[in-house]
C-alpha cells in the first residue's frame, strides 16, 4: 500500500444518540481511497448506524464527516449519492417484477426528453460499465425476481457504478450468498478497487475480512476499538477486540468416547432412498456438507417433515426408521413425540414468529406438549404461566438478551434469536437432533455457546445430524461427515480422515 494514501472518508468524533442510548460515541477513523475497508463488530455494535449516518439516512448528533478531505453535512441518501457514496443494503432494494435494466436506470434514466426512456442507450452504457470493471453480466431484460441472490447483488453493485458512486458501502454482503457466489463477489470487488473505487465492507465474519480487506476498523458497543492494517493483525486479535475478551474458535471442551460407540452400535436412525441413504449412530454428530443447492435442503425437509416433503422430494419412495420404528409420512408433531428436535435452515422464515414474543415463539412446535397445555372448557388450552416460567429459566441458562420474555422475536439480534431456537430445541430433551446452520449470522460470542450446547448433547449420548455450509464448523464438531453433490451422498469421511482439502474436492463433485 501507498505509505500516504489519500483519504476518501473520514469520521471525526461522530456521535449518534437515540434518547439516552449511544448508538455511536465519538467515532473517529478514516478510509483510504482505493482500498477495501472492513468495518466489523458484533450485532448491535453500531456499524449499521455509522453507515446510515454516512449515507445520510440519519444525521449525526455530533462531530463531522470529511469526504475527500472536505467536511460535509450529508442531508439524505440522494445527497449522499450525489457526493459519490452508494450503499448495497443487506436486503436488496430492487423492484422484483421489473427488469434489471429498468431497476438500474431508475431515477437516472437516459431520456430523449422526459418520458421517453432510451433503453438501448442504457444497455450500451451498462455494457461499457461491466467491461470497464470486469463484471460478467448480461441479463438486462430479465425480471429481477428470476435472478439468483448473487446476481441480484451484482445488479445492486452495477446500479451504484451506473450512478457513478466512488465509495461503495456493502452491508453484510455475504450473509445471503453461497460460497461460490462469495468468491465471485470478492473477485469483482478487487477489480473495482483496482479501478480506484473505495469499498466499505460491513461484516461480522472475521475470515473474509482478513482475506479481502486492506484495513479494518473494529467497533464495540457504539465505539471504535481500533483500526488495524489487515496484514498486521489476525483472527484472535480481531475477535478479542470485537467481543472484549478472549474467544476460541474451535470447540475446547471434552469430546467423550462413549461406551456405546466402542461396541458396534445399532443405528438410532436409518433413511434409505435411491439417492440418499444414511445411518445415524447413538452419541455421534453426523455432518452434512456440500455446496448449497446440492440436495441438503430437500433431505432436511424430508427428514423433518415427511408428511409434506417425503412425497415432494422423494416421491414417497424411501425407508425411514427411528429406533426401529417406521416413520412413513409422519408429521413434525409426531416426530417430536418420538424424540426428534429441529433447528431449521432459515431462522427468520422457518423458525420464528417475528411479531410475537419469546413465550409464543418458545411454544411453536411445543403448542401441543402436555407440559404446557391442559384440557379446558374451550378445548386444549395453553398454560401461559408454565410456558413463561420455562422461557425465563431458559433465558437465564442461555444468557438470552434482552432478558425479558415479552420482547418480539423480530426485535432480537440474530445470535439471541438462535439461542432462543436452541433453547426451544433442547427443552423437550430430544434424543435425535436435526440442526441446520446453527451459527449462520450469529455473533462470535454466541457461536461458542451454541457449539458447547451441541457437543454437550452429543456427550450425553444424543445423536445429531448437523447441516452446515461452514466446513470449519463441521470439521470441528462432527464425528463423521457425508458430502452431498448433485442430490446424492457423494462421499463419506470418518473423523480421523477429515481433511478440508479432500472434502472440498468431493463437494465440487470429484
Amino acid at each position, binding site marked *: 500500500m501507498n505509505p500516504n494514501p489519500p483519504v476518501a472518508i473520514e469520521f471525526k468524533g461522530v456521535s449518534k444518540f437515540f434518547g439516552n442510548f449511544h448508538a455511536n460515541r465519538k467515532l473517529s477513523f478514516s478510509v483510504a481511497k482505493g482500498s477495501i475497508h472492513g468495518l466489523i463488530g458484533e450485532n448491535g455494535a453500531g456499524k449499521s448506524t455509522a453507515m446510515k449516518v454516512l449515507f445520510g439516512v440519519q444525521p449525526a448528533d455530533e462531530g463531522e464527516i470529511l469526504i475527500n478531505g472536505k467536511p460535509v453535512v450529508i442531508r439524505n441518501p440522494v445527497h449522499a449519492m450525489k457526493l459519490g457514496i452508494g450503499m448495497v443494503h443487506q436486503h436488496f432494494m430492487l423492484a422484483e417484477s421489473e427488469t434489471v435494466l429498468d431497476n438500474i436506470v431508475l431515477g437516472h434514466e437516459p431520456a430523449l426528453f422526459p418520458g421517453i426512456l432510451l433503453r438501448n442507450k442504457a444497455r450500451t452504457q451498462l455494457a461499457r460499465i461491466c467491461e470497464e470493471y470486469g463484471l460478467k453480466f448480461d441479463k438486462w431484460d430479465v425480471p429481477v425476481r428470476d435472478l439468483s441472490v448473487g446476481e441480484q447483488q451484482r445488479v445492486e453493485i452495477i446500479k451504484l457504478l451506473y450512478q457513478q458512486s466512488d465509495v461503495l458501502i456493502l452491508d453484510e454482503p455475504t450473509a445471503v450468498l453461497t460460497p461460490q457466489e462469495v468468491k465471485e463477489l470478492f473477485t469483482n470487488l478487487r477489480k473495482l478497487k483496482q479501478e480506484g473505487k473505495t469499498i466499505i465492507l460491513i461484516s461480522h465474519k472475521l475470515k473474509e475480512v482478513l482475506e479481502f480487506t486492506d484495513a479494518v476498523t473494529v467497533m464495540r458497543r457504539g465505539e471504535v476499538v481500533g483500526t488495524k492494517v489487515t496484514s498486521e493483525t489476525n483472527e484472535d486479535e480481531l475477535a478479542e477486540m470485537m467481543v472484549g475478551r478472549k474467544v476460541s474458535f474451535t470447540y475446547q471442551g471434552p469430546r467423550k468416547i462413549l461406551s456405546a460407540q466402542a461396541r458396534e452400535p445399532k443405528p438410532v436412525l436409518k433413511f434409505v432412498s435411491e439417492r440418499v441413504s444414511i445411518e445415524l449412530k447413538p452419541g455421534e454428530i453426523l455432518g452434512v456438507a456440500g455446496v448449497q443447492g446440492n440436495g441438503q435442503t430437500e433431505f432436511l425437509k424430508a427428514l423433518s417433515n415427511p408428511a409434506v416433503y417425503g412425497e415432494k422430494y422423494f416421491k414417497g419412495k424411501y425407508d425411514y426408521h427411528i429406533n426401529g420404528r417406521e416413520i412413513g409420512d409422519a*408429521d413434525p408433531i409426531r416426530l417430536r413425540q418420538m424424540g426428534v428436535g429441529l433447528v431449521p435452515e432459515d431462522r427468520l422464515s422457518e423458525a420464528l414468529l417475528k411479531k410475537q414474543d419469546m413465550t409464543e415463539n418458545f411454544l*411453536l412446535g411445543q403448542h*401441543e406438549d402436555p407440559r404446557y397445555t391442559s384440557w379446558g372448557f374451550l378445548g*386444549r*388450552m395453553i398454560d401461559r404461566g408454565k410456558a413463561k416460567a420455562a422461557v425465563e429459566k431458559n433465558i437465564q441458562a442461555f444468557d438470552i438478551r434482552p432478558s425479558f420474555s415479552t420482547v418480539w422475536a423480530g426485535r432480537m439480534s440474530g445470535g439471541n434469536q438462535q439461542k432462543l431456537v436452541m433453547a426451544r430445541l433442547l427443552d423437550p430433551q430430544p434424543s435425535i437432533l436435526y440442526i441446520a446452520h446453527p451459527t449462520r449470522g450469529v455473533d462470535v460470542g454466541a457461536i461458542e455457546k451454541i457449539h458447547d450446547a451441541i457437543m454437550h448433547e452429543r456427550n450425553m449420548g444424543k445423536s445429531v445430524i448437523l447441516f452446515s455450509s461452514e466446513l470449519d464448523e463441521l470439521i470441528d464438531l462432527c464425528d463423521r461427515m457425508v458430502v452431498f453433490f448433485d442430490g446424492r451422498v457423494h462421499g463419506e469421511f470418518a473423523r480421523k480422515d477429515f481433511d478440508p482439502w479432500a472434502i472440498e474436492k468431493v463437494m465440487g463433485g470429484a
Partner: protein
Amino acid sequence: MKRLMKSLLKPIAGVLLGLSLALIVTWFAGESPLKVLKVLFQSSFGSGYDFGMTLFYSAPLILTGLAVSIPIRAGLFNVGGEGQLLMGAMAAAYAGVVGKNIASPLVAIAFASGMAFLGGGLWGLIPGVLKAKRGSHEVITTIMMNFIAAGLTSYVTLYLIKDPESSQAETIPVPPSFHLKPFESFAGAPMGWLIVALIVLVVIVHYWMWNSVRGYQLKAVGENETAAETYGISRQKAWMFSMFLAGGMAGLVGVVEVLGNSHRFKLGFSADYGFVGIAVALLARGNILGIIPAAFLFGILQKGAASLDLETDKVTRDLSYIIQGLIILGVVSEGLFEWRKKAKNA
C-alpha cells in the same frame, strides 16, 4: 393499564379526527355542527327505545366484525360476511319451518341458533376449502359466494318457503317458541338478553384466540406460514377452520334478525352488515375485544342516519355514510401520525 390506554389512544384519535372532518362537512352543507351532534346523541340515547334500537343495529355488526377479525388472524381476508349472514338467517328461518312443533323455547332457540351457525359456517367453509385445496384467493371467492348467497336466498324465499299470506318477499314466519323476548324498557325495540350474550361471545372468542391451542395455530399460520408448517401446524386446516368459524359468526346474525326481530327471513333485511363488519374490524385494529365499542359506534351512526334525515333540513341520510367513511379514514390515517413522528426523529 398504561398499555391499554395507549392502544385505545390511536383509534379514539382517529374517530375524533373523522368526526371533526364530518362536522366540517355538515357546516359547509349549512347545518350547525352542534345540532348534528345533538341529533346524533338524542337519536341513540334519547329514550329506552332509541338505545334499544342502537343496540339492535350494533348486534349484527358485532358478529360480522368477528367474521372478519377471526380469519385475519390466520392471514385471510373474509369479504364474505354478507353472504354468510344471509345463509345463516335463511337457515334460522328454515329451522322455524321444519321445527314448527317444537314447543320449548329453549330447544327451539338452541336449534335455530345452531342452524344459523351451521348455515353461515358451511358457506364460509367453501372459500376456506378452495383456498386450502386449490389456492384460490379468498377475497375473490368470498365475493363470488356473496352473489350466490343473494341469489339462492332470494330463490328460496320466493319459491320454496314463501309466506302465502304475505304480499311481500318473505318466508313463512317462525312459531312463537322461536321468538326472543325484548327488554320491556326498550319500549318495542327488538333487543333483549341477546346483546349480553353477544358481548359474552366476543369475550369468549377473545379468550379462546389467545389461550387455546387452536387459536395459537391460527395465529402462527397467519404470522408465518412456513414456520408453522415446519413445526407441524397445517395451514390448510387453520384456513378452513377459521373460515368455518367466521362464517358461523356471521350466520348468527340470523338469530338477531329472524328470532329477535322480524321472525322470518325478509329479502333485503341486511343493511350491508357484512361489509360494515369489515370497517368494524378495521376500527378494532384486529383486537377482538375492540369489536364491541367499534360495533357500538357504527350502530350509533346507523341509528343516527335516519334521524338526521328527518330532523335537520340540510343533512341527509347520506351524510351519515360520509361520517362513517371519514371515521374509517381517520382510523386508517393513524399511519400518518407514525410517519410524521419518524420524519421528526430523523
